[in-house]
């Protein structure tokens, strides 16, 4: 249980880090280390080079961009957990991050690391998906911005080229008074969820749903939006019958069958958890 031999670099600028990644074969970026280090210790990955970006300046911080929150890639999960800015503008993220690992791992783990690792059940990946976040990437040709839908390519696979670094993520802010909820089922607190559901809702002046975003994590190769639920909510005044019926549609979603749960069980969880998440989000929603 020791990391395999590798060569270690700790550049201090994004440009140097990108240059190193372009020059070195089989390199891995080390951010907070809460996923890469276990994988190194267990020798699931055998990189020849480790590029530690902890000393790269300006990759950390939470910035208010008015209609969006921009979070630097190396921002520790702890900073997000305790950020008043995040709590007031995107309270769903505060609620979800408390389910990310434990205090000790949130002290080190970063948002960028979580997004690049792209575990199917990762809460922060679900947050990027539910908010339609924009991923900011630096490479040899400068910066580019990618919608999260294009950033996620497949199971634990991102659109990052080998010589690119995720430098930040931009979360569009929902209207004040929006409803939100994040609920997950895990065997133990802090474990990756078997299934998780996040919901964001906006009401119009009559109390009808004007905007809805629902994400389901842990089901498929990556967190997915429950589009049937979202579309069924728009323009409707939520009622028990409507919510029951819409959430039943989650039973038909693609689901993984593995050691943690069968596909059928995951689908049942998706139905139950989406129902609870919608109830909670509706109770927190105020009319426009």
């Amino acid at each position: 249980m020791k990391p395999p031999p590798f060569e270690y670099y700790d550049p201090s600028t994004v440009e140097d880090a990108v240059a190193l990644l372009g020059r070195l074969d089989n390199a891995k970026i080390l951010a907070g280390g809460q996923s890469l280090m276990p994988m190194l210790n267990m020798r699931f990955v055998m990189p020849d080079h480790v590029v530690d970006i902890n000393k790269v300046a300006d990759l950390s911080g939470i910035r208010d961009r008015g209609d969006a929150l921009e979070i630097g890639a190396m921002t520790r999960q702890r900073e997000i957990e305790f950020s008043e800015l995040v709590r007031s503008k995107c309270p769903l993220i505060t609620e979800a991050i408390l389910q990310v690992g434990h205090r000790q791992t949130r002290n080190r783990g970063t948002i960028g690391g979580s997004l690049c690792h792209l575990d199917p059940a990762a809460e922060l990946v679900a947050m990027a998906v539910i908010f339609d976040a924009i991923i900011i990437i630096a490479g040899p040709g400068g910066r580019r911005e990618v919608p999260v839908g294009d950033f996620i390519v497949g199971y634990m696979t991102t659109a990052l080229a080998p010589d690119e670094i995720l430098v930040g993520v931009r979360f569009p802010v929902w209207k004040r008074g929006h409803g939100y909820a994040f609920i997950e089922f895990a065997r133990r607190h802090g474990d990756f969820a078997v299934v998780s559901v996040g919901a964001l809702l906006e009401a119009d002046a009559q109390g009808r749903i004007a905007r809805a975003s629902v994400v389901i994590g842990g089901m498929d190769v990556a967190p997915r939006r429950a589009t049937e639920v979202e579309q069924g909510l728009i323009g409707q005044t939520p009622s028990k019958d409507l919510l029951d019926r819409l959430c039943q549609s989650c039973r038909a979603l693609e689901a993984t069958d593995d050691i943690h749960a069968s596909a059928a069980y995951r689908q049942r969880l998706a139905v139950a958890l989406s129902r609870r998440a919608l109830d909670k989000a509706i109770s927190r929603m105020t009319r426009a």
Partner: protein
Amino acid sequence: MSDTQRSKRRTVSLTVNGKAYEKEVDVRLTLADFLRHELRLTGTHLGCEHGVCGACTILLDGLSARSCLTLAVQCEGREITTIEGIAPDDRTLHPLQEAFRDNHGLQCGFCTPGMLTTLLEFLRDNPSPTEEEVRIAISGNLCRCTGYQGIVNAALDAAKRMAPTAAA
């Protein structure tokens, strides 16, 4: 040391429990192994070595962290507190340690260093926690002896002992 050499071995200078150390190490050495094998501070225990059990928890610049998931070379210029650095001196226990002793907060003692470092940070951030908050705080630390009840009692008792007195 040239850049090529520095990519494989490095000199790391850091402070552990208030004492400055400088050692040349392999870059792949974890902080946990550095503390145990290089500094012979064997109070930090290694259980799972992949960030699940919490036994190796130390304080890195005052914040709890898994020492098995941090490289020693990443701690250049940083301040580490291990279980050895908690008590005020060799003859006096920290109030948190006293509370563990008095509430049967440990049996075999393997998880205890991680429990104490974790709770030290937690009680600093949250000096009068509820039982549920304590249970969440130690959810990243596995204990196979106590059933946790003694640990929870100890943490709640420690919070009382560590609270500033009215006179202070």
